[in-house]
């Protein structure tokens, strides 16, 4: 695989995005406005809380979950969106006839188009890590392991959305359904620690919290307990299983893809 080709795709799409400087400023402003409002909201929540809520810790939690979700593209499913739009506008035929790997092409295109978002996410990830630093080397190690698992699950999640559009063409409704459920159950909207204990424990056996909640909470772990080990194993099983199944589904639906025109 010629990596430089994909880097060129990233660069090209990023340069297209840079055409309008005021738009970039508005985009950056939007990113930070979103964070400011999140902070204001949880401050108001903390004021009416039944017990003392550490707003600094909560703020860093949301900075970390938001940035991880943005970098791994599991909140806005940017990769899935790129594929969906290509299918809907029938641009995908133009890619299929090119000597590039389809998934690689779309991944590079998405990274290029959303580079600014990724850069901003990295900044907020760093701020989040400064506010809520890893406890020791074990927590760093666990964080990295969970992020790897989260990457595969998020990637499959995006690819599933794209593959679904080969079959149904317009899948906005289904994608939104998945998005709403994932947003709450992955801890992006409210930390899972706010959930009743039984629901939280059931959720931790599913792949959804691995996309945001689990990597962030791993930063607080000082040792590898049996609980963490179970979460790690659950994550490995889900990420392998989901990636395998979704890739299979992708290949199957791509074979059935039928384009007209262009």
């Amino acid at each position: 695989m010629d990596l430089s080709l994909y880097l060129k795709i990233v660069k090209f799409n990023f340069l297209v995005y840079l055409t309008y400087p005021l738009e970039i400023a508005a985009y950056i402003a939007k990113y930070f406005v979103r964070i400011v409002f999140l902070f204001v909201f949880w401050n108001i929540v903390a004021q009416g809380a039944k017990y003392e809520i550490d707003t600094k810790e909560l703020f860093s939690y949301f900075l970390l979950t938001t940035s991880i979700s943005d970098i791994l593209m599991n909140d806005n499913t940017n990769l899935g969106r790129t594929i969906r739009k290509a299918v809907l506008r029938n641009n995908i035929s133009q890619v299929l006839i090119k000597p590039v790997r389809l998934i690689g092409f779309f991944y590079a295109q998405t990274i290029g188009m959303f580079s600014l978002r990724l850069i901003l996410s990295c900044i907020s990830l760093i701020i989040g890590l400064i506010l809520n630093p890893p406890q020791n080397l074990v927590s760093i190690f666990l964080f990295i392991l969970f992020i790897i698992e989260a990457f595969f699950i998020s990637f499959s999640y995006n690819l599933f959305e794209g593959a679904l559009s080969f079959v149904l063409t317009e899948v906005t409704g289904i994608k939104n359904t998945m998005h709403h459920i994932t947003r709450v159950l992955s801890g992006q909207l409210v930390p899972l620690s706010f959930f009743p204990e039984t629901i939280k424990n059931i959720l931790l056996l599913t792949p959804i919290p691995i996309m945001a909640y689990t990597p962030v909470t791993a930063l607080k772990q000082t040792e590898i307990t049996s609980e963490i080990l179970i979460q790690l194993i659950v994550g490995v099983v889900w990420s392998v299983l989901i990636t395998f199944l979704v890739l299979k589904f992708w290949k199957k639906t791509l074979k059935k893809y039928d384009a007209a025109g262009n």
Partner: protein
Amino acid sequence: MKYRLNLLKAIIKNSFYQDTAHFVNNWGNILSVVAYMLTNILFIDIIYQNINTLAGYQRDEMLLFSLLSQIWFFILLGIFYKNFEILIQSVNNGQLDLILSKPIPSLFYTFFRNLNIFGITRDAMPSIIILWLAIDWSNIQIETFSLFIGIIILILGIACSILFNFLVCLPVFWIGESLSIIDLAFTIEDNAGHVFPFEGWNDFWKVVFTAFLPAAIASGISTSVILGKLPALEMLAVSLIVTIIFLILVNVLWKLALKNYTSASS
């Protein structure tokens, strides 16, 4: 007037065909709003398990606030926001020529070029019904007069919001693109006016989100008025004045924007 009504009829028919073209997606959209509403209620319930009040609001008052937010959301996002995005794209790629060269009222057409009545009803109804059922109405005390004024304020607030969103797309006539600007404005509006109650803001931000960036009128102020937390007539007067000012601004700035429109296409 008759001509405008005929135009509206044709637009509604066309929007219906566009919206129902993908059968599975219709059900997907319904599923999506049901999922959103259920997760939203779950979110509010989880929050209220950990807090006593949110900016002085109890759970059911908060759900009422969410109900009005949903009405605002479906009208703005379902109809007008989409049309404003199309306006931005058509200025960007020069297709606005095709509208300006036709004998149709351009401002009217820009606002109503897609009028997806079917789609909005389909998506809004499940959401509103679920919220309605989730509210324990016995926990909320509402007077008829406050409710009546609150509904008028809601309508004025939605109008204000539509006009404001239109204004923020107009920079496209000068700089060639404004999708991120309208996106930024919507993010501010959504978060400032529709995530937590009006009472959550201090006096300075209350003024900002009422008069300059009218995010709080549609749900925040109207809910407060319905619940008797704010004086009804004063807030009605404020909402009316803000709406009139934004209406004048839209008419003036639209003419100015058209004068500035240059196209090198079509």
